[in-house]
């Protein structure tokens, strides 16, 4: 047999293996270094199985509602790699290869199933290549797992949709059920809920299309959709619950975040057409490139090449009805669905821009919860990318046939070879950054997140040597949840939490945006700096076991290091390179007993007078708060002060209209007498023509005029005329103890893109008033909110993140203060002594917990908010001296997760029995299923 014949005979197998090989390109990326990405810049995914496995997470600060529970399975899978002996780097490589290789073969299989040998195998290969290394990932994040999992799931969903379309008998419910199961296995895709929801929408659209548009069967549609949604929610309720609670109780936070991004809820049509989006390319012509190759996408010839696939897709959609006799009626029905879905998702990806943009705007404003899709490109594009290879193949096939028909002298084999080679060249030139690892940032400038990280040796030493205590470690200095580490590579994140599992405390102490906790943080930091004796005394009251001095952060940390060393030298317990660890207390105090005398309830109306209250209430008082704060009062003790001059970077006074003609020009306003711990009102007015969002930030500069750190940043969208922004500046940052530094307000465009700013972004008569509302007592926010008194701690056992067992030794009336972040979902369960001892002996049991929680007549009390951050219950006339404190969403989440695992297990078992062991049994099974469903 000749080579050609062998090749033709095995072409689908050959290109299958070639496609599989494509999935191994990520091997090139590592080069012995760890790579981190936007998933909280986690270094070790395997730890996530235990860090985020409950609906409450307590790795940072005082804990919070865990919307990251959906990462659980990802943690378990990577944990599996490490359990079979892989080290950290090997497990990272395996995880990414696993995803990319699966993505590649699933796509190839989907295309093979759909086209069923009607097109040459190389077209399947080319399209798989196009799908696998779509520029979409250059726009979001190449390494982020959730979008990559979406890309793995999509072809699988595609195969199941093919099956679902092929039958109207009860078997179609089986496929819908398998779709729900597939979503369960790929649940980390919902780590970004809107992105995951768009895939669910795709499935719902397929149900609608099959039953309504391709045959009007309203009853069948309702039944199919209900069945799919029921099985979906049954298998996914374990993560849907925390996310829903978070959406319901923190709507304001979400709305604020989304609103600040509202203006970018569009990607330009010309970018989306070539599967490029907004994120990475917002800086495309600016001074800073995400990666060097980026610029070539806007130069000849690549700028033309990158539009070639969209031309072929366009031609493919055109050819659907022209390719006569090629596709059977079922394929045609599917092609109609796929082309409609493709165009819907492509339009949605553009957001508010261009053709159809007004419709998107309407949806955004009128459709319930549609605002969650704040980056339409990132959320909707995956489905459009998944569907485009189908039309690429249809278009190419049709093109080849037409050319061969019209020009009979053209050799069929030769022409196919030319097409194959040119398309490989086209694809490789578009995907070049993936191939040469160009798109992994390796920046070390303290701001851009580095993806390739090289942790210093002392970090590995810390990992192997240090045994942290159970309590919290206060981070100092810190900028918040993520810090900029000056490693060989740079690193932006919280390596303590995401790598070592040490619980840390820092600004933004709540993981779920319970900002009021920061009030306590300011108190803690101020005491740390100003009253070392007292700090050591109160540390355990705030569950602080120690202090981590982060000497490896960007910036000048020497002065702070000296100050901390001087004051806390006797507590210095470990030194690892630049990191110094101070240890204060042995045991954390999770639960404390307080006297009723210490409790005053304060109306939310007076929250802002909280500090003032301290002045007229006697010592030793605890304050509890009502939590439905809606109003607040302002106190201004000094008239507003007007700052009235503008300077540009060169110190020249700026007059006349302000025109952003250059991204390099940051307009700077010096702020005299700037003070941390004050409240500011920024008023500005002007004629804003075509105004784009602006960034207002306040920088601290040293005597040489260098930016030392940013203390404040806010994105503003100027409205015509008068605008007002209010903000408070509080800081835990080390550099604030340098009184000689000056502060500057910077104002610069959010979009540093000439393309956008060439659009007449003129701001005339811009005027800023920087009003410093000096609230005399705000400086005393750190005034003792906790007095020095004898502690009455109780025996507390932390059973898990969500369950604590408590034993109170002296009976009587008291307040029980529980020092995890306040949440209305915590419950205090009085239990009998024997239940307590059984739990201490054998641990908690879900069934008994459910009985304890729901099997009682009296309603359990919601906690009060104590001291702005913790939970408290007033205990009076209660004979119990044993309690359980439980976070009830965790119980529900765990129950539903177990149900889902059980369903998966049973389904796999049935699959093995019915499909692989006995084929005749399969038919019996189907006939029984069919009969029972038809009945």
């Amino acid at each position, binding site marked *: 047999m000749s080579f050609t014949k062998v090749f033709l005979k095995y072409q689908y197998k050959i290109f299958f293996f070639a496609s599989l090989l494509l999935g191994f390109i990520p091997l090139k990326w590592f080069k012995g270094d760890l790579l981190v990405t936007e998933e909280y810049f986690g270094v070790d995914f395997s730890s996530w199985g235990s860090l985020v496995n409950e609906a409450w997470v307590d790795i940072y600060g005082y804990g919070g509602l865990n919307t990251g529970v959906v990462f659980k399975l990802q943690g378990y899978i990577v944990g599996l790699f490490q359990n079979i002996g892989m080290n950290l780097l090997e497990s990272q490589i395996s995880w990414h290869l696993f995803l990319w290789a699966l993505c590649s073969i699933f796509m190839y299989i989907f295309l093979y199933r759909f086209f069923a040998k009607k097109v040459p195998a190389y077209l399947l290969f080319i399209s798989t290549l196009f799908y696998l290394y779509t520029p979409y990932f250059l726009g979001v994040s190449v390494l982020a797992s959730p979008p990559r999992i979406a890309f793995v799931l999509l072809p699988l969903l595609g195969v199941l949709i093919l099956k679902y379309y092929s039958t109207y008998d009860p078997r179609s419910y089986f496929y819908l059920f398998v779709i729900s199961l597939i979503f369960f296995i790929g649940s980390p895709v919902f780590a970004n809920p809107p992105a995951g929801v768009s895939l669910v929408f795709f499935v719902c659209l397929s149900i609608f299309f099959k039953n309504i548009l391709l045959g009007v069967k309203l009853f069948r549609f309702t039944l199919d959709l209900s069945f799919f949604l029921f099985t979906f929610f049954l298998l996914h309720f374990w993560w849907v619950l925390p996310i829903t609670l978070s959406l319901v109780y923190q709507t304001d936070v979400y709305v604020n975040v989304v609103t600040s991004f509202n203006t970018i809820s569009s990607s330009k049509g*010309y970018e989306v057409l070539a599967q490029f989006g907004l994120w990475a390319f917002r800086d495309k012509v600016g001074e800073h490139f995400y990666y060097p190759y980026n610029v070539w996408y*806007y130069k*000849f010839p690549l700028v033309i090449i990158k539009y070639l696939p969209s031309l072929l897709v366009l031609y493919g*959609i055109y050819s659907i009805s022209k390719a006569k006799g090629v596709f059977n009626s079922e394929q045609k029905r599917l092609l109609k669905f796929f082309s409609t879905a493709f165009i819907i998702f492509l339009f949605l990806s553009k957001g508010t*821009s261009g053709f159809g943009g007004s419709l998107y705007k309407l949806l955004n404003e009128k459709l319930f919860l549609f605002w969650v899709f704040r980056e339409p490109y990132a959320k909707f594009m995956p489905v459009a990318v998944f569907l485009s290879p189908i039309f690429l193949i249809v278009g190419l096939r049709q093109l080849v046939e037409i050319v061969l028909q019209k020009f009979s002298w053209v050799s069929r084999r030769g022409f196919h070879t030319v097409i194959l080679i040119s398309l490989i060249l086209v694809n490789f030139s578009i995907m070049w950054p993936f191939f040469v690892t160009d798109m992994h940032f390796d920046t070390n400038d303290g701001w851009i997140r580095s993806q390739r990280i090289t942790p210093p040796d002392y970090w590995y030493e810390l990992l192997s040597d240090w045994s942290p205590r159970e309590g919290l470690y206060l981070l100092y200095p810190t900028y918040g949840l993520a810090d900029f580490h000056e490693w060989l590579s740079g690193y932006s994140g919280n390596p303590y939490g995401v790598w070592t599992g040490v619980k840390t405390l820092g600004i933004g102490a709540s993981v779920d945006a319970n900002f009021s906790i920061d009030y306590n943080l300011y108190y803690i930091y101020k005491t740390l700096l100003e009253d070392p004796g007292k700090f050591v005394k109160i540390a355990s009251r705030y569950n602080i076991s120690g202090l981590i001095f982060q000497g490896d952060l960007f910036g000048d940390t020497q002065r702070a290091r000296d100050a901390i060393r001087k004051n806390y030298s006797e507590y210095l317990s470990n030194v690892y390179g630049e990191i110094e660890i101070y240890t204060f207390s042995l045991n954390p105090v999770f639960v404390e007993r307080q006297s009723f005398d210490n409790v005053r309830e304060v109306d939310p109306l007076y929250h802002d007078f909280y500090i003032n209250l301290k002045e007229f209430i006697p010592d030793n008082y605890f304050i509890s708060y009502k939590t439905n704060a809606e109003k607040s009062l302002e106190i201004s003790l000094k008239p507003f002060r007007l700052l009235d001059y503008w300077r540009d970077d060169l110190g020249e006074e700026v007059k006349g209209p302000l025109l952003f003609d250059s991204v390099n020009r940051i307009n700077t306003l010096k702020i005299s007498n700037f003070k941390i711990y004050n409240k500011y009102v920024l008023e500005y007015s002007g004629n804003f023509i075509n105004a784009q969002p602006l960034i207002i930030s306040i920088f601290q500069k040293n005597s040489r005029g260098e930016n030392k750190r940013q203390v404040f940043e806010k994105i503003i969208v100027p409205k015509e005329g008068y605008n007002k922004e209010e903000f408070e500046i509080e800081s835990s940052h080390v550099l604030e103890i340098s009184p000689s530094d000056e502060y500057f307000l910077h104002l610069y465009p959010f979009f540093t893109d000439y393309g956008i700013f060439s659009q007449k972004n003129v701001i005339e008569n811009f005027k800023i008033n920087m009003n410093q509302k000096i609230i005399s007592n705000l400086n005393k926010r750190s005034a003792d909110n906790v007095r020095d008194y004898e502690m009455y701690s109780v025996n507390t056992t932390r059973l898990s993140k969500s369950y604590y067992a408590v034993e109170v030794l002296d009976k009587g009336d008291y307040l029980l203060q529980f020092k995890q972040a306040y949440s209305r979902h915590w419950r205090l369960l009085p239990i009998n002594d024997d239940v307590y001892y059984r739990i201490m002996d054998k641990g908690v049991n879900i069934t008994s917990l459910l009985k304890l929680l729901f099997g009682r007549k009296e309603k359990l009390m919601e906690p009060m908010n104590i001291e702005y951050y913790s939970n408290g219950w007033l205990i009076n006339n209660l004979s119990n001296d044993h309690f359980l404190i439980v976070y009830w969403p965790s119980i529900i989440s765990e129950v539903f997760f177990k149900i889902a695992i059980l369903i998966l297990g049973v389904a796999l078992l049935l699959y093995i029995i019915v499909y692989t062991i006995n084929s005749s049994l399969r038919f019996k099974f189907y006939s029984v299923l069919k009969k029972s469903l038809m009945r």
Partner: protein
Amino acid sequence: MFDIIVFALIYLYSKTTNLNVANLALIIGIVLTLATSFAVMFSFYNFAELTSSIVFSTLLILLVENFLAKTK
């Protein structure tokens, strides 16, 4: 509004000139996709946005035509 106008104009033009709508949409789509790429190359981003918008409307026309093809 611009969305509907472009969409309607192409249909209207094909009806008055007796051209096949799908063929016309394909030609406009191809020409304007190329025009988009050149506009991006020369940094005429507003023009690129305009041409790409028309490409999107041609995609929609092709979709509609595919649906109508069966009934013709």
